[in-house]
């Protein structure tokens, strides 16, 4: 079963088109949605949650069409963290817990208190006085405290310092220990996605350029670093993208289409994304 099934999703704004987005989030896995700022990641997430109206396509979440009236109740099973926490400024963490206890039917007050303590969040401090890291930790604590089966995280780690990001990534890893728990994690910080994702969906200028298992991507692609004049020696069909510099050229290639005798280096997810974003094929 898939936690999320998206087919031919389309949304048009003046000057921006998100078009033909199709991918699945298999249950029990983590899909990383990667793309530059303004690529359409947040729009995709808002469309999944039916917070904005789609212009075409379909979205199923945990087996239910997101336009079905039943989807509203299903939101109890979905923990969402947006790019900002959006809690009222005067509320403290304790206040937020009381509000959420009346919002989500499966609210787990003990788990919420545990997470507040684990994240070292103060009980009484007003949300307005929180740092960016504390705000995001509070949002994550709320998202995890109503016993969701699916987490949808939109740039939840952006703006956090590396230590906090590491803590948060650990929390997400713990969440997926339950086999029916799934995560859709959008970020433009590719290193975070590389750490925890099983699949990578890359959105660029409103189009889905790839959706692939992360490990397979890293096996499938490699980088050839060579003098510019030797680029022609690479089989044309193997070359996905080329970067030329003062000291030579780099080519992202499909490993299986290049002779084993050719010196290739292991690539990173970030390199693959950059090559594809800059006009790869």
């Amino acid at each position, binding site marked *: 079963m898939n936690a999320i099934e998206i087919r031919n999703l389309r949304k048009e704004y003046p000057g921006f088109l998100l078009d033909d987005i199709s991918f699945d989030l298999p249950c029990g896995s983590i899909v990383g949605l990667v793309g530059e700022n303004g690529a359409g990641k947040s729009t995709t997430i*808002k469309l999944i*949650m039916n*917070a*904005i*109206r789609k212009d075409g396509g379909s979205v199923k979440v945990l087996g239910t069409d997101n336009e079905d009236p039943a989807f*509203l*109740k299903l*939101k*109890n099973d*979905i923990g*969402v963290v*947006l790019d*900002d*926490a*959006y*809690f*009222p*400024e*005067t*509320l403290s963490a304790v*206040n937020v817990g*009381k*509000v*959420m*206890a*009346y*919002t*989500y*039917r499966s609210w787990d007050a003990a788990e919420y208190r545990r997470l507040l303590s684990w994240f070292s969040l103060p009980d009484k401090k007003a949300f307005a006085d929180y740092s960016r890291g504390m705000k995001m930790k509070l949002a994550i604590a709320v998202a995890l405290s109503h016993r969701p089966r699916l987490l*949808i995280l939109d740039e939840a780690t952006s703006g956090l310092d590396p230590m906090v990001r590491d803590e948060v990534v650990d929390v997400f890893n713990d969440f997926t220990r339950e086999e029916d728990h799934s995560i859709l994690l959008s970020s433009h910080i590719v290193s975070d996605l590389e750490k925890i994702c099983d699949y990578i969906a890359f959105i660029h200028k409103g189009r889905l350029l790839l959706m692939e298992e992360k490990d397979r991507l890293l096996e499938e692609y490699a980088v050839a670093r060579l003098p510019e004049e030797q680029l022609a020696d690479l089989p044309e069909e193997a070359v996905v993208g080329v970067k030329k510099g003062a000291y030579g050229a780099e080519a992202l290639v499909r490993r299986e289409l290049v002779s084993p005798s050719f010196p290739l280096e292991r690539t990173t997810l970030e390199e693959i994304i950059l090559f594809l974003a800059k006009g790869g094929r």
Partner: protein
Amino acid sequence: MKGLLLKDFFTLSKSLRMFLLLILVFACMPGYNMAIFAVVYASLLPVTALSYDERCKWDTLAAMSPYSPAEMVISKYLLGYIGILFASMLALAVHAVYGLFSSSPAGGYVSSIAGGAVSGLLIIGLTLPAMYKFGVEKGRIAFFVILAVTFGAVAGLSALSDNGKLSGFGLDIGAGTGILILLAVILLNAASILLSIKFYSKREF
């Protein structure tokens, strides 16, 4: 719905303290109009809450939660109704206690508070759809226009009434007419809620 009301209560807690103080002061002041002002002030609570929501983008977060557009809208109307009821009751209670130590008549005061409460309901019914249609910033202009027209009309009518004396917000009306006005305001609020839900459902977050 309880969660939304609780959130507004926490958000408005500072304003509510000032609100309580206003009611206490106004209820003890001689004359009826000041207490009416406190009751009418309660009808502004939903707009204040909406303004806070807009500032922190609460609706964006709420769109991810199991709240329906109807619950989001009705909670704001309920906030106003509870505020008006609470302010009216408190003003009457304070005035009753104050009356023990002064010769202030109670009858006119009750009708004044009732007039204020109906005016508050009228304000909620007329202004909230504008807030949901245009947002708080633009809706505020509509709000002031509606407020000016409504109270201008009430003041004009009171000036034309038999003796021009303000009682029950100006109009010397019989019980039958009062009930008709109340029914009309209730119907207006029902239509207003439906319209607000329609506007809210069309918004994207």
